[in-house]
C-alpha cells in the first residue's frame, strides 16, 4: 500500500479533532506515569494504524490486534494509577500527524506517515516498545510506591514478550542482550 493510501485509511479510521500535545518531562510519580501513559497511547495508536493499513496479512492483523489490546490494557491500568494520584489522563494522538509530532518530541526515528511496508511498521513498533521498556526500567528505580513499581514491572515484562513477537516478524534475534535497558 502506498503512503497516501495508508494515511487515508489510518486517518479515516482513527481521525478525531486535533489535540495539542503538551510536552511533559517526568517529574515525580505523576510525571513518570503521565509520560508512560502518553507512550502507551501512542503505541496503541500505531498498532491501530497498522491494523487499518492494509499492509498486513490476516495472521499479522490478528497478532497486531492482540498486541494493541495489551497496550490498551496497559493504558487503562496506568491511567487508573495516575488518576488515583490526582493526575489527568493525557490526550492520545488523534491523527498520524499528531502521532508523528509525539515521535519527534520523543526523539524516536520512525514516523507513522512514512510507513509504507510491513517492515516499516514493525520497525516503528519495535522502536516504540523498546522505548517503553527503557521507560519502565528507569521507573522501577525512580518510583517509590509498591503498587506502581509492580504494575510497571508486569507491563515491562509484557513489552518484552511483545519485542520477541516483533523481532520474529523482522527476522531479528529475539533476545539480543542479557539486559534490556540500554536501548531506546
Amino acid at each position: 500500500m502506498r503512503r497516501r493510501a495508508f494515511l487515508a485509511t489510518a486517518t479515516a479510521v482513527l481521525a478525531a479533532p486535533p489535540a495539542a500535545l503538551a510536552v511533559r518531562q517526568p517529574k515525580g510519580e505523576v510525571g513518570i506515569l503521565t509520560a508512560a501513559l502518553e507512550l502507551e497511547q501512542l503505541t496503541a495508536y500505531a498498532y491501530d494504524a497498522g491494523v487499518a493499513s492494509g499492509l498486513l496479512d490476516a495472521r499479522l492483523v490478528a497478532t497486531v490486534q492482540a498486541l494493541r489490546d495489551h497496550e490498551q490494557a496497559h493504558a487503562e491500568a496506568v491511567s487508573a494509577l495516575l488518576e488515583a494520584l490526582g493526575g489527568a489522563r493525557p490526550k492520545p494522538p488523534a491523527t498520524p500527524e499528531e502521532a508523528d509530532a509525539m515521535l519527534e518530541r520523543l526523539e524516536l526515528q520512525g514516523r507513522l506517515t512514512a510507513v509504507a511496508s510491513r517492515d516499516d511498521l514493525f520497525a516503528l513498533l519495535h522502536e516504540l516498545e523498546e522505548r517503553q521498556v527503557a521507560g519502565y526500567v528507569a521507573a522501577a528505580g525512580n518510583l517509590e510506591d509498591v503498587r506502581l513499581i509492580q504494575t510497571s514491572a508486569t507491563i515491562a515484562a509484557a513489552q518484552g514478550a511483545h519485542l520477541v513477537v516483533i523481532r520474529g516478524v523482522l527476522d531479528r534475534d529475539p533476545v539480543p542482550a542479557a539486559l534490556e535497558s540500554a536501548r531506546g
Partner: protein
Amino acid sequence: MVARRGFLAGAGALALAGCGRSPGEDEPGGSPPERTATSRQGDIELLQAAHAMELEEARAYNGRRGAVFERFARIEFDHAQELVSALDALGARPAGSPAAAAADPLDAENRAIAFYLDMLPKVYDAKLRSLIASILVVESEQLAVLRENAGEPAAPDPFVYGVPS
C-alpha cells in the same frame, strides 16, 4: 496505595507492611533516603537469592541440546555476573551455589519472573531496582521464545506475572 518505604519498614525486606498515602505524597525527586545497615543487608540477601536462582536457571539450560538453550544459558550466567557485580559494590559475595538445576526451562523462567516481581519493590537501592527490572524483561523475552518453541503464543497476556514456585 502502599509506599515502598512503609513496605520495607514493617518487617525487614521480606514482608508487606504498607501505609496509606495521599495523592502527591512521597514524590521522588528530593534527597535520596539514607542507606542504613538494615537496608544494605536486605539488598544483599535479595541479590544473593537472585544469584542462586540465576545459576539454577542456567543449569536447567545447560543439560539441553540446541542453540537456543546454549544462548539462554549464557544469558543466565550474564545475569548472575551482573548480580555478583552488584553484590561486590555492596561489599558482599554470593551466598553459594544452588543444590540442583531447575527441572524445566519454561518453569524456571516463570519462577524467575515471579521471583523478580516479588523482589523488585523490596530492593532499597534505586539503581538496583532498575537492574532487576532490566533482567526481569529479558526473562520475559526468554519465556516468550520458549512459549513459541512449544507452539504457544509468545505474548498471550497484557500483564506478565510468572508462576511462583
